[in-house]
């Protein structure tokens, strides 16, 4: 076996490209056969696919929900705004002078003045109260100045708020910092929870696939023995099972993705309705094609990993 002259026309005489071609053809054939086996066994593999799909769909839907909440809070991200409600009796010209003065403050990045009339018009348009507001004798809304600070750090914000509150033009100051911070903290917490749930479910998927592959190995015990008898390497024996795991994982991820699409579509209408009452055109965002590809790949990887675990454990026990 070490002397090529005694081995006849062994594969050492084939050139590399020829061997690579044969190897690729073999992979193509094995992966096709594995998929064929799965599709051939109909209901039982469909059940496995569904189990994997549901286990993967849950964390995926949670992650997408979190993502959406994240974009919702995105408009406040990093740059908290300060709302100055001006004194109701302040003249419009005085409000203009004040806003121009603020513009010159070094710690202020942007200033937007919303006059009382504009505020009312906007409120009429968005609140849906419409004509009811026309019945009011005079405008109940004060003029508002929106300030965007240069430095969003909490300490400097507090300092600025104190300075603003001291001004006679200002009736009250509100900073949306606190609730943005709270929302971010909640999103962080949610993310952690989703990640831990995902890990458990991922582990579950790994075990489901591992167990399914273990059964497949048991079913093909004689075949494995014969392959080993005629000189099959461990890699050769392992290959069809790894492909089996790959297809289980990929199929499961595909089902999970479909489940996610369906549930997002189902949520879309109520979300639109809810967003409408807030006067925004918010719409749910699913996965883009890159994320979809990544998700499917992750499923396939989980499948291969589960198969690898099962094969590593059980294949050595089968010796002719």
């Amino acid at each position: 076996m070490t002397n090529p002259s005694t081995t006849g026309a062994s594969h050492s005489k084939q050139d590399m490209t020829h061997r690579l071609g044969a190897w690729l053809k073999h992979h193509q054939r094995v992966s096709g056969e594995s998929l064929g086996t799965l599709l051939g066994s109909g209901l039982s593999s469909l059940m496995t696919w569904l189990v994997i799909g549901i286990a993967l769909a849950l964390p995926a839907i949670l992650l997408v929900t979190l993502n959406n909440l994240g974009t919702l809070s995105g408009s406040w991200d990093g740059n908290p705004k300060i709302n100055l409600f001006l004194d109701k009796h302040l003249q419009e010209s005085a409000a203009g002078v004040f806003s121009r003065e603020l513009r010159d403050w070094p710690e202020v990045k942007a200033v937007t003045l919303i006059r009382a009339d504009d505020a009312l018009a906007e409120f009429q348009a968005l609140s849906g109260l419409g004509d009811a507001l026309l019945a009011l004798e005079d405008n109940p809304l004060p003029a508002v100045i929106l300030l965007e600070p240069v430095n969003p750090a909490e300490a400097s914000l507090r300092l600025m708020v104190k300075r603003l509150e001291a001004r006679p033009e200002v009736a009250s100051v509100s900073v949306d910092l606190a609730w943005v911070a709270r929302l971010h903290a909640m999103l962080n917490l949610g993310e952690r929870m989703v990640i831990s749930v995902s890990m458990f479910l991922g582990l579950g998927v790994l075990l489901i696939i591992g167990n399914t592959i273990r059964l497949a190995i048991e079913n093909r015990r004689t075949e494995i023995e014969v392959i080993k008898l005629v000189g099959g390497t461990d890699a050769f024996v392992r290959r069809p099972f790894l492909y089996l795991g790959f297809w289980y994982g990929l199929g499961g991820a595909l089902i999970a993705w479909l489940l996610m699409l369906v549930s997002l579509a189902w949520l879309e209408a109520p979300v639109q309705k809810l967003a409408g009452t807030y006067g925004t055109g918010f719409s749910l965002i699913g996965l883009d094609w890159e994320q979809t590809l990544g998700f499917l790949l992750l499923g396939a990887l989980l499948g291969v990993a589960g198969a690898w675990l099962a094969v590593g454990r059980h294949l050595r026990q089968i010796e002719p």
Partner: protein
Amino acid sequence: MIRFDQVSKRYESGNEALAGVNFELDTGEMAFLTGHSGAGKSTLLKLILMMERPSRGQVFVSGVNLNRLGRRHIPGVRREIGTVFQNHQLLFDRRVYDNVALPLTIAGYHPKEVSRRVRAALSKVGLADKEKQFPLALSGGEQQRVGIARAVVNRPSILLADEPTGNLDPALSAEIMRLFHDFNQVGVTVLIATHDLDLVQRMGLRQLILKEGRIQPDD
């Protein structure tokens, strides 16, 4: 080609199958391994195929001491040896063609080359028209010949057979033996374990007789 040097094999059950076996089979030689059932014929073949490891002593195949080879070298050893098993060891859910092609697929041959060699091997054993059949549709003798085709398809330098004529009638047995003889004529080293003494006598070839775990001295 095959050399046993003081080889003993004691199973965990305490049963000593081989007790100091010595023999050498030259390249291109053909011999029969005989002895009553349980004399250790199968154990001896399993040691050559590394299905078992000797308790003591050394087995050499093509000059390589098998004791020195680790687990990952086993496939390489088996690829150089064509083996015909007593119970055929065919895959019943695969067609005759795929059964015979298995050693070539494993060795990484290109499908075209595989097809050429499989057809040659099948026509050599007279089953050229059965390649699309499943093994269960074949008779016992035909199944045995599929096993032989699979054993020789990779053109091994050594051919082992364990009771290849076990359940066959005398005419079929003689035919199978003639096949082995043909392979031997083209330079393959052949070792056949059998208890069919009539046949052995008729062939008039070297006999390795196993008795009480040892090879009896040549006459």
